[in-house]
């Protein structure tokens, strides 16, 4: 098992290394280079640009810049924001908990509901429930999240006033109830898309599993249908589902970004948008890299869970 872990860790670090190279290339390929904001600003003179270049070490050969940048990334020195000179690490990291809170709750909610719907739809194949959930899921997948969020705000917040229209806390009230009160709408909007995806994934993998020979053997043993469904069906379906969770992470992170902008939820997504217009490179790059790291770690976690659950995986160990 240890060998499998080390092997997988090496793969993840190589992947991260690749991600950082692509990220670095992106930063330099973008028109105007990293100093785009200055070069486009008429008031800044040519000498100033030269001075800034040296200050940021942009005059050194590319690979030196890369290692300095990557080294900084690892050591926590993510550079300074072009505006207000604040440590990028502080700006980005203090927004992380908000994003994780939103993503975490939505994912948890969506997992439970989505897997339940998917399993039921697979068991009751071609029933009215199956068709209804399939069509519902397809429509939910097609809804533009931001539009759905807008309507939700308009309807539930402004007209009915049940929920706050945005933000994470009301001023001066840090009670848990208030925090939850703010969480409801954004989580519902983000979770809707996730529930749709999870119910479709679960349904198709459950259908494959329920047609397998070993499920028929279990039924032939005279085991109760619920035990067959859970101990045999769901357990085998766990492997493809966990693998899919890893693949779905980029969509989850992307979805969180969109939801944050609509509900002005103070997470990384909102920060990304607010900083985007000013082209504040270091912050943008930091968020992109954090997003990618979350995805890589997510995939690593998914692989480990699969290895724990599926005895066949340890095979490559010896």
């Amino acid at each position, binding site marked *: 098992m240890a060998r499998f872990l080390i092997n997988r860790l090496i793969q993840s670090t190589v992947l991260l290394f690749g991600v950082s190279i692509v990220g670095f290339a992106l930063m330099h390929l973008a028109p105007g280079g990293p100093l785009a904001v200055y070069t486009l600003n008429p008031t800044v003179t040519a000498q100033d640009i030269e001075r800034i270049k040296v200050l940021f070490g942009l005059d050194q050969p590319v690979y030196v810049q890369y290692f300095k940048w990557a080294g900084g990334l690892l050591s926590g020195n993510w550079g300074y924001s072009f505006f207000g000179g604040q440590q990028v690490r502080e700006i980005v990291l203090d927004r992380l908990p908000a994003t994780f809170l939103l993503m975490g709750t939505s994912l948890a909610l969506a997992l439970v509901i989505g897997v339940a719907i998917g399993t039921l739809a697979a068991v009751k194949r071609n029933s009215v429930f199956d068709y209804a959930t399939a069509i519902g899921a397809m429509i939910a997948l097609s809804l533009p999240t931001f539009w759905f969020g807008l309507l939700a705000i308009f309807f539930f917040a402004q007209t009915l006033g049940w929920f706050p229209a945005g933000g994470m806390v009301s001023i001066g009230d840090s009670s848990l109830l208030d925090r939850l009160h703010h969480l409801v709408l954004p989580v519902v909007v983000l979770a809707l898309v996730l529930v749709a995806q999870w119910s479709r994934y679960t349904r198709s993998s459950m259908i494959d599993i329920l047609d*397998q*020979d*070993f499920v*028929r*053997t*279990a*039924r*032939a*043993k*005279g*085991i*109760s*249908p619920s035990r067959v469904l859970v*101990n*045999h069906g769901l*357990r*085998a379906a766990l*492997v493809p589902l966990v693998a899919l969770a890893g693949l779905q992470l980029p969509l989850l992170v992307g979805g969180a970004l969109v939801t944050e902008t609509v509900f002005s939820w103070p997470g990384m997504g909102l920060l990304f948008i607010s900083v985007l217009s000013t082209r504040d490179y270091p912050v943008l790059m930091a968020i992109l890299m954090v997003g990618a790291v979350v995805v890589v770690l997510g995939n690593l976690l998914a692989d480990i869970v699969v290895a724990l*659950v*599926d*005895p*066949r995986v340890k*095979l490559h160990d010896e």
Partner: protein
Amino acid sequence: MTGEASTPLLKVENLLVAFGRAKAVDGISFDVAPGEMLGLVGESGCGKSTTALALMRLIRDAEIGGTAHLNGVELLGLDEAAMRARRGADIAMIFQDPGTALHPMIRVGDQIVEALTAHLNISHREARKRAIDLLRKVGIAAPEERFAVYPHEMSGGMCQRVVIAMAMACAPRLLLADEPTTALDVTVQAQILELLQGLVREEGMGVILITHDLGVVAGMTDRVAVMYAGAIVEMAATEELFARPLHPYTHGLLRSIPQLDSGWDEPVPTIPGSVQGAELQAGCRFAPRCAKASEVCRTPPALREIGENHFVSCWNTP
């Protein structure tokens, strides 16, 4: 060992299995005496496996007709809960492909324990002990260690022994063996057939052995029923059937098997045409391929007894 006991262990009358318009099993009737092994023989698509799955009530979305009395209890009429209590206890089944019949993520021992605890209320420890005895009984060396092994760590032959142990767990009265050795190499097949024969004699079970291999039938069964496109075309004691095949299909089938030590280099007698589209055929379904076909064959032939316990469904037999 063909104990002609008065009341048969299993009495099947006009068993019908229809998927929409296509009748996979078209009203077949046969008996199995306690301790007797009945061979169910035919080419793929003749309905032999469907018959077994219908008796186990493991077929979904199909129309099932007729009756099947096991020890006087009508299986097809039971509600699902009552049937479940009998699956694995009174009637058990083993399947063709050992590689997929066992759950890949559960230890083989636990899968046998599950078969025991499904019907007997015994402690887990007791069930575990019995499972180990069962493993020893089916010829698996060092059963204590092999108890904790996963199916992918075992060869095809060993997996099939575990499947047999699972089926024998609650000493069923009737065992349905669906092509138990087709997926195995010939030397391993010989081992499994020898094991099956010993267990059946020891436990005095009734067995339906489903296969397309007439050599296996010749060596193992007391009586044989030959099926073609969903109907039994001939049924008799094994020696009687091989010595005096009456139905043109049985006769053709027996002659078209290449002999190990005779008939070299001569063309193998064949049955012209193919079984495609036969189940939609009115009258005798073998007619399109039968040399003796005539007008009378347009009306479906009934299974008539010609000679002592030798049934045939053909108008042109001598």
